[in-house]
């Protein structure tokens, strides 16, 4: 192996390590974004399958909520297309599950009446269609 090849290889390995590190760090930041937002009490789960800002959040908070919702919308769209369902139907079904299993005591949720409520020790009262 000549010197030039070795240099190129070294550069490649270094870059690979850097990229992997950056990806891992990014995953850690994004890893529990929606759980962190729910736990902050500044965002909550809505019956439409999206996160909502409780009260008037900061621009940064709204950006974080929007970022999660854009990803959710993409997943809903994808699954809806696969199952021949409407995006809203997939989203609402997801909301049933999220309200049931992800909103824990002290966290906020909002149903069709549009009012933010804080979950107490009882489960979130689910909409009738959730089954």
């Amino acid at each position, binding site marked *: 192996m000549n010197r030039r090849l070795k240099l190129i290889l070294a550069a490649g390995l270094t870059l690979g390590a850097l*990229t992997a590190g950056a990806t891992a760090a990014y995953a850690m930041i994004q890893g529990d974004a929606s759980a962190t937002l729910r736990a902050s009490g500044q965002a909550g789960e809505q019956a439409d399958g999206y996160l909502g800002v409780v009260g008037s959040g900061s621009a940064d908070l709204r950006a974080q909520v929007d970022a999660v919702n*854009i990803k959710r919308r993409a997943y809903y769209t994808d699954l809806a297309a696969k199952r021949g369902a409407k995006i809203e139907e997939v989203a609402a079904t997801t909301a049933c599950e999220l309200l049931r299993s992800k909103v824990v005591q002290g966290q906020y949720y909002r149903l069709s009446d549009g009012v933010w409520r804080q979950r107490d020790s009882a489960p979130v009262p689910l909409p009738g269609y959730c089954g």
Partner: protein
Amino acid sequence: MIMPILTGLRPGATQGAMRRVKFLLLAPAVLMGSGCVQVSAPDKPIEINLNINIRQEVVVRLQQDVKELIDKNPGVF
């Protein structure tokens, strides 16, 4: 003049090294440009309509897929 004789006849000594440095500096820029995931906002804002009109049989049909979706994407759900 002694200097040109020493270096001028051996371009590989300096020019070859500079070419490698140039390559090494360029490579990260190229890789970073293609490595970024572009997340662009949709044109329309996501409409919030909390009055959901959906039949329970649709929920039942989608439930298993939705559970998997949530489990596979813990950061988003």
